[in-house]
């Protein structure tokens, strides 16, 4: 028993953090929400070069096998930096397609290398960033796939960096196993949780920085107990979500993943409410970069497993 990140794991997260810090992600997000995918795809390739997609791809297809703890670390960093794009969906698609040798051969080496951007969604839902993807996979009682150019009409998400397109079944059923379908959904749930935690971590950090420098009544507002206690509760929420994520990554059991998802999603959303409230009116503006994370927290809380769905899953055992 050593429930701590290894030095290698911590170094991996730090190197991603450094790379994404240098990438000026707020500018990338603002381009992405306007349909300019160029800067975002540059980041995509760097993330792939850092080995992130390979963590979801078996070694046979140029990957490193499924390494859930490392994936959780990577997706927390993507959330912390507010990186736009169908990262969760591409990683989950890798697990889905690994269940079929032909599809695996066709897609997985290119996913691992960052050459293929793909998305996937539940039938009747919305495919994230289908306009940026060359493959759209739709999950239902059978799995179907469509290629690029058929994205359809853009629906704008409450998080404008999430570009949504109706997910409808297209073409013949793909030969993927029920096990790989379940594994794909569970990985999407886990990595959305990791991303949500990263979003919450950034919202808390930005708000702590703000209340230290914002002065009212002649004193930094961070000295007031009402402000301190709200931030303390926000930290409690995030710190107790964190071990659930790592624990779920180690066990990869459905109830553990659902527990991590509901807890990280709620903690992140609570962090967003705190961040908005403590920034006051300036926090309610599109202009402030904080908005890039504020708008993300709610969709991530509900994507790939709403709190209600996750709680029911926990009780199923």
């Amino acid at each position, binding site marked *: *028993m*050593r*429930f*701590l*990140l*290894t030095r290698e*794991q911590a170094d991996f997260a730090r190197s991603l953090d450094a790379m994404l810090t240098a990438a000026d992600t707020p500018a990338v997000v603002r381009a992405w929400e306007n349909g300019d995918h160029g800067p975002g795809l540059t980041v995509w390739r760097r993330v792939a070069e850092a080995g992130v997609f390979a963590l979801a791809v078996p070694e046979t297809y140029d990957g490193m096998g499924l390494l859930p*703890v490392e994936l959780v670390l990577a997706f927390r960093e993507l959330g912390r930096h507010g990186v736009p794009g169908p990262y969760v969906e591409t990683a989950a698609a890798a697990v889905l397609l690994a269940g079929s040798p032909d599809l695996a051969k066709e897609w997985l080496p290119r996913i691992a290398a960052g050459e293929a951007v793909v998305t996937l969604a539940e039938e009747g839902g919305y495919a994230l960033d289908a306009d940026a993807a060359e493959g759209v996979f739709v999950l239902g009682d059978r799995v179907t796939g469509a290629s690029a150019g058929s994205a359809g009409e853009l629906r704008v998400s409450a998080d404008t960096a999430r570009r949504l397109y109706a997910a409808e079944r297209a073409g013949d059923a793909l030969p993927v196993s029920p096990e790989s379908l379940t594994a794909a959904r569970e990985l999407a749930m886990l990595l959305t949780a990791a991303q949500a935690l990263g979003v919450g971590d950034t919202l808390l950090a930005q708000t*702590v920085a703000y*209340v*230290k420098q914002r002065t009212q009544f002649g*004193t*930094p507002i*961070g*000295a*007031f*107990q009402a*402000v*301190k*206690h709200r*931030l*303390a*509760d926000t*930290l*409690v929420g995030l*710190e*107790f*979500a*964190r*071990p*659930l994520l*790592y*624990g779920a990554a*180690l*066990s990869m059991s459905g109830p*553990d993943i659902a*527990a991590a998802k*509901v*807890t990280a999603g709620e903690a992140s959303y609570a962090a967003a409410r705190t961040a908005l409230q403590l920034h006051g009116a300036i926090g309610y503006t599109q202009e402030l970069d904080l908005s890039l994370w504020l708008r993300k927290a709610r969709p991530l809380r509900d994507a790939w497993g709403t*709190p*209600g769905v*996750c*709680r*029911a899953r*926990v*009780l199923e055992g």
Partner: protein
Amino acid sequence: MDLDFSAEQDAFRAEARAWLAANVPAEPLPSLETEEGFAAHRAWEARLAADRWSVVSWPEEFGGRGADIFQWLIFEEEYFAAGAPGRVSQNGINLLAPTLFDHATQEQRARVLPSMATGEVIWAQAWSEPESGSDLASLRSTAVRTEGGWSLSGQKTWSSRAAFADKAFGIFRTDPDAGRPHRGLTYLMFDLRAPGVTVRPIGRLDGKPAFAELFLDEVFVPDEGVIGEVGQGWRIAMSTTGNERGLMLRSPGRFLAAADRLAADWRAHRDPAETAVRDRVADALIGARAYQLFTWTNASRFAAGETIGAESSLNKVFWSEYDIALHETALELLGPEGELADGEWAEGYVFSLAGPIYAGTNEIQRDIIAERLLGLPKGRR
């Protein structure tokens, strides 16, 4: 990063489980907040001690098994899963004993610890005073130098189970002229039956005499009752309260067992239309798991040679709020039975209500989290 137990840890768990299965009383003992229940729980301590299960983390010479932090957590999981009785010696074991290991002389350890391990002597804490609650450093009870020891005078309060306990420990002002309130305090142990001590039980919310006021009128304490250096009581006590808030007082095993019991109740009585209750039962299971994993993280940090500081305040806020939510859900699930004072969850509910208050109120904990973990500026309390 892993969550795997070693073969040795599995064997330790199996040994604890087997002993508990053979020894835990079939019927719950009477409430330990009553005179009858206190005696029954004291007898249970002796039974634990007879097979060296009362203080597993202590060295063998004092009645323990030299268990490391992981084994202690395993023992606690098994203890609560077995539905074993509450620990009437917990204040001594969790608060005083760690202080003795860190700050006392070998003579003091040899004198105090063995009888604590068997439940022969049960210890109460004497921290708060009527005018010193959260602002504990303002305390006024004094210890005045006298021939061969100290003379204690003043008033202590909220002393858990002092109505039935044998001895007490706390901090007293030995130097009224020290520059700051935190200075000039000394950590002392005293006998609750010594001349000059008056114990007045206080009924808690449900009327049980769970705590007491202590009136001290020139109570003599010999020099060997002083722990650590005279004047260093605050620093020594703070190392104890860190234990209280942190790992030692509320082990995850307690909440894992309670959440499992709650989930079993829900499965037996569930109303599929009541999704709000269902969600809260799920939250109880999730919270217990979160607390367990958070604790394994801290235990791993301990094992790696790190120390846990202000992070223990995260713990305290979490478990105390969690415990109330769990019991509220359990009472709701019971329907009309939930109101009964002798109901299955009633005693636990009343006890949980005190959680956000004792061991440093949650308001104080949130100040600590904000100032020491988030780096926010100190303000007026």
